[in-house]
């Protein structure tokens, strides 16, 4: 469905008045693909570049370099005009449902807007159909966003995104502003919608338990690069990159007994993307670091079925 090759997005940052801008390498050579009706999750901590990837893929940000193929067509070089028709097939759902809906439009108008914009026929019945698909009833149609709960707003945002029958959705932390009981409703809705309409998802999240629930494959990002990618079950059952292990070890698990007796304690914090470490970007926090890691950046190397890892140590082990 969608394939991204060596995608880069640099932001110029000016420090001081006369200094030349330095570049913040938010996304630095990321490649992945998402199959039809499948979900790829992008996981990482703040500053890893996961949101920038999501926005660049649908050209909310113009890519600095790299290719984005949507159903085989390179959309990164298209003109704005050409891109317009493709863009209807790619939609985005944001973290905060209150700020992604226009507070002055009723639910009906919000969902109808994209249909009217693209002069579709049968707007009224289509809107009710969409509201029904996301579990909202007719009585919600005339309400304003501030009269709805967070979960209901997110359903409206999903209905709106589905209006033009997209084939690809970027979900940027769609449930992190919601309470757990509501989160479960929205997650199940996303799964059902995907099954029924065969939509591909790029699911951006920092919550690994939600990622396991929703995704088929996972890419772990660290300072603008993918450090590990593979099938969800493989990664969760046998994480290979030290950073993936650290992330999985850090999640508080809702089953008591692990208290005060842990194997690994994560060390340090993410370095500034403006001044990334040399060699392997993860080396300052890595418990297995060796001289090679400081000097030389490892490549993303295939180590198993659809499994790629960026680590000197893992590749050596596999060889």
């Amino acid at each position, binding site marked *: 469905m969608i394939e991204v090759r060596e995608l880069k997005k640099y932001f110029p940052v000016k420090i001081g008045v006369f200094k030349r801008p330095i570049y913040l390498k938010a996304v630095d050579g990321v490649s992945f693909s998402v199959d039809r009706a499948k979900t790829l999750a992008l996981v990482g901590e703040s500053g890893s570049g996961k949101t920038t990837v999501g926005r660049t893929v649908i050209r909310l940000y113009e890519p600095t370099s790299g290719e984005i193929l949507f159903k085989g067509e390179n959309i990164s070089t298209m003109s704005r005009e050409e891109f317009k028709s493709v863009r209807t097939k790619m939609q985005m759902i944001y973290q905060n449902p209150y700020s992604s809906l226009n507070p002055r439009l009723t639910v009906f108008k919000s969902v109808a807007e994209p249909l009217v914009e693209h002069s579709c026929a049968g707007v009224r019945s289509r809107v009710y159909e969409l509201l029904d698909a996301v579990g909202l009833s007719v009585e919600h149609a005339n309400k304003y966003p501030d009269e709805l709960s967070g979960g209901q707003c997110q359903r409206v945002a999903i209905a709106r995104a589905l209006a033009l029958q997209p084939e690809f959705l970027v979900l940027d932390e769609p449930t992190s502003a919601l309470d*757990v009981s509501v989160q479960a409703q929205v*997650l*199940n809705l996303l799964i059902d919608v995907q099954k029924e309409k065969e939509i591909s998802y790029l699911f951006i999240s920092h919550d690994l338990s939600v990622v*396991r629930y929703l995704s088929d494959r996972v890419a772990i990002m660290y300072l603008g690069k993918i450090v590990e990618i593979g099938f969800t079950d493989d990664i969760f059952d046998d994480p290979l990159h030290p950073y993936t292990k650290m992330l999985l070890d*850090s999640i*508080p698990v809702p089953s008591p007994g692990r*208290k005060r007796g842990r194997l690994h*304690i994560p060390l340090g914090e993410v370095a500034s993307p403006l001044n990334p470490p040399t060699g392997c970007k993860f080396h300052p926090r890595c418990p297995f670091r060796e001289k090679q890691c400081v000097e030389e950046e490892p490549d993303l190397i295939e180590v198993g079925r659809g499994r790629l890892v960026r680590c000197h140590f893992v590749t050596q082990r596999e060889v």
Partner: protein
Amino acid sequence: MNVKLSIRDLFVDFATPLGVAKVLNGVNLDVYQGEVFGVVGETGCGKSVTSMSILRVLPQNAYVRGSIVFEGEELLEKTEEEMREIRGSKISMVFQDPMTSLNPLFKIGEQMIDVVRAHRSVGKREALDMISSLLADVRLSDPSRIVSSYPHELSGGMKQRVMIAMALSLKPSLIIADEPTTALDVTVQRQVLDLILELQEKYGFSVLLITHDLGVVAETCDRVGIMYAGDVVEIAPIEKLFSNPLHPYTRALLSVIPDISGKKRLTPLGGSVPSLLHPPTGCRFHPRCRFLKDVCRQDKPILLEVEDEHFVSCHLYGGR
């Protein structure tokens, strides 16, 4: 068990332009000496209002009834002067967002010295020594650099460590931590939680940990209270809460967390949290409850000890 803090029948109403919001509906809970007690609940359940009532920092439009006894003394009868003495020196607080809890215009050292000198008559030099050892306590390497930094020069995790050091500075016997790691990345969260536990073991203070994350509770707390729409619906030692949850809401909460070790279809709880302007009659959970009986609509169930140290407020267990 030595009871450090005891809350009984705490009601808090807020006067709003839309009417009276009945935010706390008779909260009962005890925090024991030297334990970590977790308060868990979703948005609007009253967990933060509970902590604000303890410190008496509720806004003007709040009307409070009930009893909050701390170390044998009734806090609701204290004068403002007496409360000021208690805040910080006996009970201190760590907030969710360390970015907004520190003043951006002053260096960390100045802010910490202010806290110490507001309560203790010590000189600047002496205060500075105290601060340096506190910063070492919270595992900040190079305390002298931290002292002369402005908040924006520190990372989120470092700022939260500074906040913890400030909370500790007057050796309180109760620390209220309101979502202390919610704004942090998971790997940093793990470090901050470990730090709180380590210091708790070292100094023996009690912790009231407010969170929405059952994972955090499972890994840090000794006992936990579950709140729903202004009521404490269940209190239990953590092993019991996870192995044998009794209240229908607790069970629902546990079944909606995605499991990190596998894919199992979640069974979401229908409906949403009620408006506290017009809360449901009887048990406030009844409109969403699978085990609804007639009595649930009429009478509010009482929090009863159904087995040793396991309290639940539900008519299924005879809470009348």
